[in-house]
């Protein structure tokens, strides 16, 4: 199945169980990881992708990503640096992947949305408008993921 729109994307994500949700969420975050040089996020994504990761490792990864997320907030009244803001949303995508699942939540969808925001921030920073192809990239990532 080739996923080509958000309806199909959301429906396919909704069928994934907890661990697979986390793993695909981590892949969405990984897709925008190049926007961030902070090694803590790469380490956290690597943890989130592993099927055999322990609860303690996930908690540690969450704390690392949370620290990056807080560090990269644009504070009230500061001139927004959209590149830094992209980092914030990469961190948010990682956090979505690592967050303990709640009933009704969709970590993979949340991670996807944060990753799209990260890409939008990059485009604004580069003065390239706001349109981007991150959604299409996510469709491809999910399509490949579902083949495994």
């Amino acid at each position: 199945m080739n996923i080509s729109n958000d309806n199909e994307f959301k429906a396919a994500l909704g069928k994934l169980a907890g661990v697979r949700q986390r793993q695909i969420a981590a892949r969405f975050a990984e897709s925008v990881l190049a926007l961030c040089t902070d090694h803590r996020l790469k380490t956290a994504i690597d943890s989130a992708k592993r099927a055999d990761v322990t609860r303690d490792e996930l908690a540690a990864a969450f704390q690392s990503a949370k620290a990056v997320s807080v560090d990269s907030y644009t504070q009230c009244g500061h001139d927004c640096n959209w590149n830094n803001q992209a980092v914030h949303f990469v961190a948010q995508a990682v956090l979505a992947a690592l967050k303990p699942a709640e009933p009704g939540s969709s970590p993979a969808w949340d991670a996807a949305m944060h990753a799209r925001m990260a890409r939008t921030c990059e485009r604004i920073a580069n003065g390239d408008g706001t349109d981007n192809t991150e959604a299409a990239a996510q469709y491809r990532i999910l399509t490949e993921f579902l083949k495994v």
Partner: protein
Amino acid sequence: MSASLDKGISVLKEMIDAPIASYFSSCVHCGLCAEACLFYTETGDPKYTPIYKLEPLRRVYKQEYTLLGRLGKMLGLFKPVTDEELEEWKPLVYDSCTLCGRCSLVCPVGNDIVYMVRKLREGMAVSGHAPEGLIGASKRAVEIGSPMGVKLPAVKAQMKHVQQDTGIEIPLDVVGAEYMVLMSSMEIINFPEYLGAIARIMKQAGKSWTLCSEAFEATNSGIQIGVSDIAATLVQRIVDGAEKLKVKTVISPECGHAYTALRWEGPNLVGRAYSFEVLHILEVLDGFRNEGLLKTTGFEDELLTFHDPCQLVRRGGVLEQPRTLLKMVAKNYVEMSDPGKMNWCCGGGGGVSAIEEAEALRLTAFKVKKTQLEETGAKTLVTACANCRIVLEEGLEHYKMDIPVVGLTETIAKHLVEGASDEHQQR
């Protein structure tokens, strides 16, 4: 005397009105305001006593408007306020005052110390002694329309993002909509979930609403830096947008000072009454709840507590609404010590979070919030101000406290009965 100092002193003289004169005359030097200020309580440094922060203004008052002061000035007994002194006072007037109003509330003779600080900031700004961070924010607010440099394309990108996320179209520039929704730049940049929550709540309530391309920003840097002309310009932009779209109500977002600036000070700043009503988002949500238009299901599992944004609760009067709303989605709720109108500031209000050089002091002052939170044992912290939210997150991260901070509007939206109809339970 430099030209800018000359202007600053002139402004300070103009600022000394009857209330200021009576406040200085009636101060009994009791020190209660010190105990109410987090910058004093958390540092123990007497220079952070609120009334002491006003010393330059007091000296101008004394030398210009009291008999003894005038005589002393004529005889050379009192020295005029200098540029060096104002520069020395800058950290006291800006970095260590969030305009939270706790000092005003405890003053036994009723001195509104925040009012006085605001007046002093007017003179400080004109004399060239405002912090660079606030100068930049004010400039961007006037020239770009956002203190954080957010332009309309970024707003539209967030609208598109929220539409993708929620499947709900975000209306822009709809003439005749009932509500015009404002956002803070913080929400546009950091918290897209706020707009998503609004979209879902408005859909459930069946209300018409719109964003305004010419007035999407709610915050008011003019209030924070202390330049009334800028404050008036920013309010006027919203008034023009609301009147152009002929909306009935303008909704101030989860931001503290934006609400007081627009609702309580705005008409005086622009010199006339509005043709529309201004409500804070929590007032709107509580109104929906009263009308049976806000339907939720389920409860938060964790123990919650609520941080009252100072400008909402102390200077804005929005006290009961957040608690009523929280009860809809939280059975497990605990108040902090000194809740409601006596709540302690997060430490970042009044423009402090825009002042980089104030960061270390702000984190020191955060100890009071840390203590409050530790006493509650709360697992989640809810608030209703985007600035508070980030300041709280930074403080919690700094002190290694693992407590998530969430906005109240999005917390309510999380529990919405989507596609609600009459058969669903209404609380």
